[in-house]
């Protein structure tokens, strides 16, 4: 790094000085650091490096031992950060502001900080925070990435703190301690303590046990042996009473629910061995097994701790997603005078506010429709799967999703009371399901345990006949050596590890069955727009069909599409904004959109339609003589007077689409392309990507019917889509993926969300699915083999209790460690995207994503 500092500035062949990514040719971003000019790859890195230097913190570059995180994602968005300053939002994640005169009080909050890589980062963050006025104290926990700050409400706002961190290149989110993993953290701390106590106790008890084992007859006095036994007893007490708590609690919980979980034989084994040893110590005759008890507890806690670490990693990535920006709402403060929108946090909505809710968005608060007819999707709230029609005057439930038309609504109840409480319920519901495979394993384990208890009893009775003295230790050995844990751990630990790894690759699994089903999939259906293609289509050409000129046509299109969330609408709006220097003065009212067809609206008393040729023809009444380009989507514009224009909108195929299709085909799965776009463009894209079956002009019902027919023939269908029109088919498919950049409606109906918006994440998911299934099979095979050998061996008396303890703990560890292999991403060259990609998502997505994740 020092060499890099002293090296002279050579324009384009050096990587970005800040983040180490290649500098694109022709870029001019640079910052003077330590007396020489350093090239930067993007304005984000440039801004961060400049702030660091300007604050006199250039030493950071001297002491860091790796490149910094790329700055592009932390590009400053002060308006968004100000959402955190709203009193209602602050209340959610801070303490110390409950008192009425709260403004001047000092508050404290926890923030998640992303991107800490080395000691220099810690130094930089602490230096920068020390210069923020109003911060009283702060404490950065590097291991967990949590920053605890106490600040003065008068002179400092949360956004100042977040902005200060962003300026030096770190993303931070408020961490809502009330909902999130406090429970998990506390459990982890307790487990760590229990592990420590058990280890300490085991080591010390072993010190007393070894001389007894080694002693030949007569070398150890009886008094000494009694003393050692009493000492062992005393030291085993903390291990049994404190460290073994999780096993006793688990066994008690299982028995109360009348099920036989894996904790039951464990608790019985510990209890029997300890009880027997205590009796032997008190009476002064018989064998003691204190060493076996402590070792068993310690080793078992070790494998528990491993499992806990795997789970914690998975949840810490989820935390970062959950702590993303508060859900936003689009408010129309001047309504009905004009419709200038502003973005406000959903928690700040008050009774009487007027909002615009676009199709695909969640309704931020309970409200009543003022304008527009729509259908809303209540499936997440009530389970009602049929969309419900709503017209002016009807109630809209907060948390439901607007499924078809943009509507203007008036809030009837402050959001705090309704939506949020419902969202919390949603989170709980989403987190409660267990995959079928896990449930199966649990059921098998319960039978296994029942059989085991019976066997232990039989063995005990049998040995009463053969050799009375050995009956007790052998029964204990049978209880301890068996490993229902391996059976019970095999599936959940593999699934947890795979879920965690996929999250780091940008795939959020919402339903528990995804990996299982994906592995069995025979057909994979792709949507085109926004899925195989970039989803950011751009206007390529305008063909004038009537008398109006290009600018007028674009302005009309802009007015009609203004409230649509469809990607084609974005392309038109963008083109209109670019072409006319001053803002458009046209407004459309009575806007009505038909899914898959187009939009109708009234501008200056004339009715216009924009959309498919057939839809527009209904209004123009004149047949169309036009040959659209077959590699672009044609959107037609017409009024009652006749045809106006044809917009050719072309969309780029995603860079990774070809690779994804090839991969899926290599796996022997059928690839099908279903698109709402014209047959011509669909076929041309399919040809480009080597897809044999492609069907264009599919309405949502057609897609649904197509998939259901496939399923009727016994196919297991995976679906990848992004739009509102895909929602139904996403739900119908056996397993479905929604693009992270797609509509909230699509995401709530999908089984998994591709957060980073990379299509190749589908490949990651299929790869993870097959690896997971392989690991589960290995684990189950190991568990069966181990139990088949060890239990008979213990029953005939070949194993003593302490050997059994080691065997059982090792078996659990093998299973967990094998599962943890899944967390490693073996594919070289695949960009591992971190959870900070959450920041690249639009608000609505993040809100709906946060709503779906179980804690």
């Amino acid at each position: 790094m020092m060499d890099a500092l002293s090296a002279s500035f050579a324009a384009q062949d050096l990587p970005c000085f800040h983040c180490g990514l290649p500098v694109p040719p022709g870029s001019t971003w640079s910052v003077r650091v330590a007396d020489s000019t350093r090239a930067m790859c993007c304005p984000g890195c440039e801004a961060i490096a400049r702030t660091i230097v300007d604050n006199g913190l250039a030493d950071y570059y001297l002491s860091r031992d790796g490149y910094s995180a790329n700055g592009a994602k932390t590009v400053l968005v002060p308006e968004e950060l100000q959402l955190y300053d709203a009193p209602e939002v602050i209340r959610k994640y801070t303490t110390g502001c409950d008192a009425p005169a709260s403004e001047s009080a000092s508050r404290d909050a926890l923030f998640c900080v992303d991107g800490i890589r080395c000691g220099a980062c810690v130094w930089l963050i602490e230096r920068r925070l020390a210069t923020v006025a109003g911060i009283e104290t702060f404490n950065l926990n590097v291991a967990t990435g949590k920053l605890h700050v106490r600040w003065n409400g008068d002179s400092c706002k949360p956004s100042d703190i977040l902005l200060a961190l962003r300026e030096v290149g770190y993303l931070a989110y408020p961490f809502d301690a009330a909902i999130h993993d406090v429970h998990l953290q506390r459990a982890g701390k307790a487990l760590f303590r229990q592990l420590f106590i058990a280890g300490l106790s085991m080591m010390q008890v072993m010190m007393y046990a070894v001389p007894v084992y080694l002693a030949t007859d007569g070398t150890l006095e009886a008094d000494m042996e009694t003393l050692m036994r009493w000492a062992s007893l005393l030291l085993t007490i903390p291990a049994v009473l404190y460290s073994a708590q999780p096993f006793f609690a688990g066994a008690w919980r299982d028995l109360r629910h009348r099920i036989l979980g894996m904790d039951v034989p464990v608790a019985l084994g510990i209890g029997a061995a300890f009880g027997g040893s205590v009796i032997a110590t008190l009476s002064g005759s018989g064998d003691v097994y204190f060493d076996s008890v402590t070792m068993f507890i310690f080793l078992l806690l070790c494998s528990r701790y491993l499992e806990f670490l795997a789970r914690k990693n998975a949840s810490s990535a989820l935390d970062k997603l959950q702590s993303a920006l508060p859900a936003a709402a689009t408010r129309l403060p001047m309504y009905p005078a004009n419709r200038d929108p502003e973005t406000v946090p959903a928690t700040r909505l008050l009774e009487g506010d007027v909002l615009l809710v676009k199709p695909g968005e969640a309704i931020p608060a309970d409200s009543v429709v003022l304008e527009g007819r729509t259908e809303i999707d209540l499936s997440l709230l009530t389970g009602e799967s049929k969309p419900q029609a709503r017209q002016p005057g009807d109630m809209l439930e907060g948390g439901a999703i607007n499924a078809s038309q943009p509507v203007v609504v008036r809030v009837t109840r402050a959001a705090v009371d309704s939506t949020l409480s419902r969202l919390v319920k949603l989170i709980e519901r989403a987190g409660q399901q267990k995959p079928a495979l896990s449930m199966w394993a649990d059921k098998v384990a319960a039978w296994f345990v029942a059989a085991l208890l019976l066997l232990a009893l039989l063995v005990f009775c049998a040995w009463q006949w053969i050799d009375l003295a050995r009956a007790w230790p052998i029964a204990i050995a049978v209880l301890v050596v068996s490993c229902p844990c391996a059976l019970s751990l095999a599936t959940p630990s593999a699934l947890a590890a795979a879920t965690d790894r996929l999250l780091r690759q940008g795939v959020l699994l919402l339903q528990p069955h995804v990996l299982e089903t994906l592995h069995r999939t025979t057909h994979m259906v792709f949507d085109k727009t926004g899925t195989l293609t970039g989803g950011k289509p751009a206007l390529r050409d305008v063909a004038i069909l009537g008398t109006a000129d290009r600018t007028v046509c674009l302005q009309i299109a802009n007015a009609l599409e203004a409230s649509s969330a469809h990607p084609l609408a974005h392309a038109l709006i963008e083109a209109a904004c670019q072409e006319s220097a001053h803002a458009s003065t046209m407004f459309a009212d009575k806007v009505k959109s038909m899914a898959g067809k187009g939009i109708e609206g009234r501008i200056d008393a004339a009715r216009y339609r924009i959309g498919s040729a057939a839809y527009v023809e209904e209004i123009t009444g004149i047949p169309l003589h036009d040959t659209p380009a077959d590699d672009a989507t044609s959107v037609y514009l017409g009024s009652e007077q006749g045809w106006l224009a044809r917009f050719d909108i072309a969309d780029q195929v995603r860079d990774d689409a070809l690779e994804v299709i090839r991969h899926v085909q290599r796996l022997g799965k059928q690839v099908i392309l279903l698109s709402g776009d014209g047959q011509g463009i669909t076929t041309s894209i399919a040809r480009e990507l080597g897809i044999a079956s492609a069907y264009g002009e599919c309405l949502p019902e057609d897609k649904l019917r197509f998939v259901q027919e496939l399923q009727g023939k016994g196919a297991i269908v995976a679906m990848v889509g992004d739009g509102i029109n895909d929602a139904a088919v996403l739900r119908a498919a056996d397993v479905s993926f929604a693009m992270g950049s797609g509509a909230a409606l699509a995401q709530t109906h999908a089984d998994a969300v591709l957060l980073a918006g990379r299509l190749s994440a589908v490949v990651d998911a299929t790869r993870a699915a097959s690896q997971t299934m392989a690991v589960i099979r290995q684990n189950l095979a190991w568990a069966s083999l181990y139990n088949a050998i060890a239990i008979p061996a213990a029953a005939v008396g070949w194993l003593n209790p302490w050997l059994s303890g080691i065997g059982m703990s090792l078996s659990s560890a093998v299973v967990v460690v094998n599962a943890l292999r899944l967390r490693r991403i073996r594919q070289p060259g695949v960009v591992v995207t971190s959870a900070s990609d959450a920041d690249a998502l639009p608000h609505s997505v993040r809100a709906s994503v946060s709503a779906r994740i179980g804690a």
Partner: protein
Amino acid sequence: MEALYLLVPMSVIVVFFTIWLFFRASDSGQFDDLVGPAMRVLQDDDSVQQHAAAPVSSKKTKRSS
């Protein structure tokens, strides 16, 4: 060998003392961040350390309950 009659009970006492010490350290937040202190100790100037708060883990657990 007679020394063992003293040493074995002493070792028991030492273990219990260790347990007590460990709980105290754990309660004070010693084990909350096992990464950061190793990084900070390598930094030359300690000016920010005086600015930073004492460990707040005990407060944190209170906050959440």
